[in-house]
């Protein structure tokens, strides 16, 4: 598909280079500041932040309650913030509800806790189908949600940015917060996956 990043013409690279040079000549941007922004999103901000939030919610009932009531404040207390993090909302999967997050209008995403969205989240296919056929879409992700479970799709159409708190898998009762954070995946915090218990081989000693 033409929107696929792998088929992007090199024209874009040349255009960006020329635009950056022009803005720099005009003193409108500082290249060092750009490097800093890129470094932050490549190396610091990412789903490992969200995984720590989820792991703490699984381990600490008081924290979980506060997170569900006011995720923005609680996440900021953990040191995660910045653009797209001003109005965070945590929604919890339960035996009766499976949450799925999309932005049909653009690609809104909770950057401070999940980093920048993956290409599939931004794709027309995901944006068009998540609201209309979430069950069919989840099947493609290898996830079959039982009929009696409500699929609750969150279309991020305003300022709220959603973080799914997946269900804690069985067999993890002895794991501490750090170990739990290791098994929480990005997709499980969007709602296109569930968290699987760690395989015995890969489990931390």
């Amino acid at each position, binding site marked *: *598909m*033409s929107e696929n*990043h792998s088929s*992007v013409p090199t024209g*874009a*690279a040349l*255009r*960006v*280079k*020329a*635009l*950056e*040079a*022009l*803005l720099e000549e*005009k003193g*409108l*941007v*500082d290249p060092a*500041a*750009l*490097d800093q*922004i*890129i470094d932050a*999103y*490549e190396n610091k901000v990412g789903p490992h932040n969200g995984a720590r939030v989820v792991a703490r919610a699984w381990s600490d009932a008081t924290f979980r309650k506060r997170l569900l009531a006011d995720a923005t404040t609680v996440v900021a207390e953990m040191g995660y913030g910045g*653009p797209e993090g001003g*109005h965070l909302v945590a929604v919890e999967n339960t035996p009766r509800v499976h949450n799925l997050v999309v932005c*049909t*209008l*653009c*690609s809104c995403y909770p950057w401070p806790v999940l980093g*920048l969205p*993956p*290409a*599939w989240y*931004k*794709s*027309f*296919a*995901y*944006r*068009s*189908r998540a*609201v*209309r056929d979430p069950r069919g879409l989840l099947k*493609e*992700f290898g996830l079959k949600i039982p*009929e*009696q479970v*409500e*699929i*609750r*799709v969150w*279309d*991020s*159409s*305003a*300022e*709220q940015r959603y973080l799914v708190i997946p269900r804690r898998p069985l067999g993890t009762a002895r794991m501490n917060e750090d170990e739990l954070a290791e098994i929480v995946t990005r997709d499980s915090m969007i709602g296109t996956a569930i968290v699987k218990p760690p395989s015995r081989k890969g489990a931390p000693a």
Partner: protein
Amino acid sequence: MGGMDGFGAVVHEDNEPTFHFDWEARIFALLLACRPYGNTDELRHAIERIPAQRYLTSSYYERWLDAMQILLVEKGAILRDELASRDIDPPTPSQPSNRLQKRPAEASRARARFRRGDRVIARNINPAGHTRLPRYIRGKRGVILRDWGTYALPDSNAHGGGERPQHVYSVAFKAREVWGANAPSRDTIHIDLWEDYLEATRPGAKAAVNRKPATGRGKKQ
């Protein structure tokens, strides 16, 4: 995009890098660093004004690049000629930015018109400019779940009309209300909608989503 056909299956890439190309990282950072040349609503509207054929055949960051160039020229930060002389003309937007006269915030909007449990209908409006009312929800009936407080109205803020903040609500719609009888009966869609996008349904109107209102009133199954 919500509900559109024809985009096929979702392609999931394992171990995806943050950026696939250096230029994607550069345009991402450029746009964050140059936010003074347009608020988020203006940026979104600039993306929406990329001609439709071009929009659909561009990648995500190509759209950022187009939108940024459109905005920089419209805001007067750079001249179209300066871009043309480097052979990087921006696309001609499908429509102008349609500047509105700036209007002050309305004090009356501080008060919420809806509360949890209220039954509402998403208005069937089709504004020519920017809006955050998804097309697929227009005319559908839902229930107010939560009042998020007041936020700048994109329909005004994208056009220089001022923030004119008003309440935004989390509104729940049954999948069946939106997509018809073939949709699974339990599934729901929750959307955040500005007050102007909503109107109250007539008292006694059939609930679109069965949910216990927090206030305990209007309980009806």
